């Protein structure tokens, strides 16, 4: 296993001055930040701060009113969600989101969509390369299940999984799309402390295998334990950013979380 350490010289994702409002509600007023290659960055903030909305904008599920998103010198602004995935930027969803009516391994196979190459006509003709590819994808799916620790559930229905396992399955589906940048939206919510602890190891492992991670999470033990950098969002604006230690001692952050007025923050 090769280890990729955070390399602050290469900007992977550049979010610049994004703003969006829904009707009269300003969800994000002006948001800019960078994600460097190989790091784990956490985006935290109280409920309604605009974290999920930021994810939706970065991954093409929402169009910002203004601002730009650049990924490795390529503009993602205005691209459709499936195109963003093609570039290697893949997200998970805050609300549990899997392919319910399918088995666990089928879920991963669906996530492997971009890994497959076979065309419609090749499939219809039943060319040998189609079944070769299918076998390859199946093997890859098993590897991914192994990575997140769900191998023993491969042939069970997704709907039969326990809550903590479902959350792992979601991450596994996203991993199947081979992200260079993985955006996790509260992946540990609903996990018990021991599940969270082992999930933290999994996330570190994913990063060590070369995937940069942008994390939204309310579990502070996880955020502080795993992040290289933390960005704090409040009411659609960044109020602080720095190492976990710096953030923990930042009075603005403490105020935002304890719910004091914004003026003195």
């Amino acid at each position, binding site marked *: 296993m090769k280890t990729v350490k955070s390399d602050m010289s290469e900007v992977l994702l550049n979010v610049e001055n994004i703003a969006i409002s829904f009707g009269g509600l300003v969800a994000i007023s002006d948001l800019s930040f960078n994600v460097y290659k190989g790091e784990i960055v956490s985006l935290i903030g109280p409920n309604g701060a605009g974290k999920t909305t930021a994810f939706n904008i970065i991954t093409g599920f929402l169009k910002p009113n203004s601002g730009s998103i650049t990924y490795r010198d390529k503009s993602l602004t205005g691209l459709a969600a499936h195109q963003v995935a093609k570039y290697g930027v893949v*997200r998970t969803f805050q609300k549990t989101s899997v392919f319910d009516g399918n088995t666990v391994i089928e879920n991963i196979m669906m996530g492997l969509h971009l890994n497959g190459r076979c065309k419609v006509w090749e499939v219809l003709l039943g060319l040998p390369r189609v079944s070769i590819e299918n076998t390859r994808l199946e093997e890859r799916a098993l590897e991914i299940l192994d990575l997140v620790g769900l191998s023993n559930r491969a042939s069970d229905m997704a709907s039969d999984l326990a809550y903590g396992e479902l959350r792992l399955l979601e991450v596994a589906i996203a991993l199947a799309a081979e992200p260079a940048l993985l955006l996790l939206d509260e992946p540990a919510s609903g996990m018990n402390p021991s599940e969270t602890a082992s999930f933290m190891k999994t996330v570190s492992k994913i990063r060590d295998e070369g995937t940069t991670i942008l994390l939204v999470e309310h579990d502070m033990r996880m955020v502080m334990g795993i992040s290289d950098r933390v960005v704090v969002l409040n009411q659609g604006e960044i109020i602080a950013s720095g190492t976990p230690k710096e953030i923990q001692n930042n009075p603005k952050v403490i105020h935002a979380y304890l719910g004091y007025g914004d003026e003195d923050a």
Partner: protein
Amino acid sequence: MSRWISILWLAFLFSIPLWMIDLYVLHILINTGIFVIAAMSLNLLLGYTGQLSLGHVAFFGIGAYVSALVSLGFDLELTDTYTFVFDAKPVWIAFLSGIIAAGLFGWLIGRVAFKVRGAYFVIVTISFAEVVRLVSLNWIDLTEGPMALNNIQPFTLGIPNLWEMTLYQKIPNYYLVLVVAIVCYILIRRLVHSRIGRAMIGLRENEPLATSVGVNVTHYLVIATVISAAMAGAAGGLYTHYFRIIDPDIFLFIYTVTMVIMVVSGGKGTLAGPIVGGIIFGLLPEILREFAAPEMQWIIYGIAMILIVFFLPDGIVPALKNWWKNHRSKRTDSAEMDAGT
């Protein structure tokens, strides 16, 4: 296990003409087979991508009309001085033309309709079928309108000018329908077990998630519509050259409804569902006709439908699969208990 079941089924289906001497029964089977193909094609769209096309009969009818017209030849007075003459073509070419034409319309409808989804898709497809029906009714120069296209050639088999056989009889027509049905079945099975089919199922199950892993939703919906429409067109072509007469009534809404009932009762999104549903609701009216008054037939038909949908909401095939799974796990449970004591 399931392989043996398929082989037995095929052997049974291929053997029917050998022992079934009642030609009327064969006629019913041919008719049912044509509808089974149409239902299978609808299932690709309704069952696997989850899009309800309530104008599916349009593709069936387009296949039927195009195939008929190409095989008959036609001429169109385009201006006072110029008449476009289209010479009659061999039936096989006509049949393929019908498939291609239906597929092209599928592409068109797919492009237009998937910009608007859900209820709008249903409305676009219904309207499309109605427009096609009105065209076939009113473009009398081309379609003869309500007078119908008559004397359509049946299929021929063999090498032109050397040895040819014209399929007037029931038995060869039965085999023809059976072979086309098997080909459609195999194509659909290949598709749904591939990454293409997984993309379709994925967007049915959870569209945002499918999108987030890179599935281009419109692209796969259009592919599904094109293949589905082409297969419905093939069913229409079989219909044309077997019955040898078609009129605009082929586009009636009730036929789409029949296909939907076949798919839903058999089990949408399963390979065997439309076959089981198609056989039941293809044969039922014929069986009922033997011993029930016309009003009774429709009442029984309706009751059968309601019972199936009410008691087996997922359809017959998924219900049977579940039953079989429970039955088996119960057996292994008791076997383990026996071993334990």
